């Protein structure tokens, strides 16, 4: 078992390395002939140069902080309103269709509306990223709450739990897996929209640096920034899944006790 695991790890590292070598070879030998397609070596050199400059970390932390702030705001609003809508059938019937309309608006078409209202500011970034992250969190909270098994709620009533207790001890834990899925989707969207607003015009962050590198015709630098956005997304996602698993297993062991 352990042996197959290390073996599959090894294979997993194999494919990217082969891809990189093929990429480098195809550029060196001239098989791929795009004017602005950098080789992996050039990208690595650009990365080393950027990593030694201060602005790189400034842009990096800007994007990460905006992403997290927007995500946290969206989490608070999404779970709160999700509970509100999910807990009461009349409220669900009364507003859910409006929620569906609002959340299916293509988020990118909202960016110009935001630009007109807020200009290219930090507030624009946070509002747009929050809006994007809000809907999956809200919708998943609503369906998580509504899928709570009715037997569970009956038991809560029979042992005379108060309404708040029922929400806190029965409904939220049983909705937790779905809420966590919503949070993960929201986190990704928050990052993407932060980068979109930076590419479109907010003068800060990875997206801004990326578009600057493009306009200055530095494709290698641009690729560094693209890879960095990928790494940020990958790490945030990984960190989230890691902590979500811990939360869920803690929840399970609490149930057993």
């Amino acid at each position, binding site marked *: 078992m352990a042996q197959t695991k290390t073996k599959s790890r090894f294979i997993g590292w194999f494919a990217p390395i082969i891809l990189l070598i093929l990429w480098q070879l195809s550029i060196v030998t001239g098989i791929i002939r795009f*004017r602005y397609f950098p080789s992996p070596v050039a990208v690595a050199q650009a990365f080393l140069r950027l990593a030694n400059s201060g602005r790189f970390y400034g842009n990096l932390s800007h994007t990460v902080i905006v992403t997290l702030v927007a995500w946290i705001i969206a989490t608070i609003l999404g779970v709160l309103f999700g509970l509100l809508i999910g807990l009461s059938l009349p409220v669900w*019937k009364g507003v859910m269709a409006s929620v*569906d309309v609002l959340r299916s608006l293509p988020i990118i078409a909202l960016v110009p*509306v935001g630009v007109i209202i807020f200009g290219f500011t930090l507030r624009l970034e946070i509002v747009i990223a929050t809006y994007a992250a809000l809907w999956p969190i809200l919708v998943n909270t609503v369906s998580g709450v509504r899928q709570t098994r*009715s037997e569970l*709620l009956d038991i809560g009533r029979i042992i005379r739990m108060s309404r708040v207790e029922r929400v806190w001890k029965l409904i939220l834990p049983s909705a937790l897996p779905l809420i966590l899925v919503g949070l993960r989707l929201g986190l990704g969207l928050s990052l993407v929209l932060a980068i979109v607003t930076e590419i479109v015009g907010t003068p800060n962050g990875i997206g801004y640096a990326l578009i600057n590198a493009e306009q200055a015709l530095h494709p290698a630098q641009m690729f560094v920034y693209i890879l960095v956005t990928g790494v940020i997304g990958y790490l945030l996602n990984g960190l989230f899944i890691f902590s979500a698993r811990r939360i869920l297993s803690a929840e399970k062991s609490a149930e057993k006790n």
Partner: protein
Amino acid sequence: MRKVARMTISRRDDGKGVAPLRGLVPLVILLAIWQLFGSTHSVFFPRPSLWWDAVVKIERSGTLWPSLVATSETFIEAIIVATLIGAVLGIAIGSVKWGDSAFNPVLDFLRNLPAAAVVPAAAIILGTNSKMALVIVVFSCIWPILLNTRAEIRRVSVVLSNVITNVGLRGFRKQSVIVGSVLPSVLLGVRVAAPLALIVTILAEFITNISGLGSLLVSAQQNFDSPEVYGLLVVAGLLALFVNIVVSLVEAPIVRRHGPSV
């Protein structure tokens, strides 16, 4: 006790399903208040009736329909290409024993790469044209299709390959059985991919200014023509709604025939 019973039943009745249309009322009321009390000259919140006027104005100038056609063309072509490539790659990776362990890290990374960040790169390498938009949309919406197909082939492969060997299917007929068995999953992937593809299409037009709904939005925003921006937002919303309806119409009969995918 009676109360308990009633509440239980009502929950069971409406546990899932489509939200009733009367839920639209708050949105309508909001728009009505906006219309009644909004200012005609507001840059930030122009009245909804002005949105309509703005859209009519774009239509009269003759740019609305060509833009919508351009956006739809990129979108539809991208969905078709992504479905074909995604299904083929998904089947290929799913049916090879070491496929998952070999490609997971690469796929995981590419899937998490924000499409928005890749748009400028595609623009600088391929030039700003509709072919570039196509490439970028395919690149960003192929993942749900590919991953769903791969998961499904994984799920059915043991039973299916036994059946195929026992019945003695070969060549084209073998392939068609495999394709038929993963079709619902492919379509489920398309369902997830379609809204994404529309967003990325508009995004690519938005960032690179190639003609389409996205470039209309940018020029409206750059002119600070806020009624036009709001109007185009509604147009984009209707397009998204239309896409959703078409996808579920296409999906329904196939899922009915082949059974739902999990």
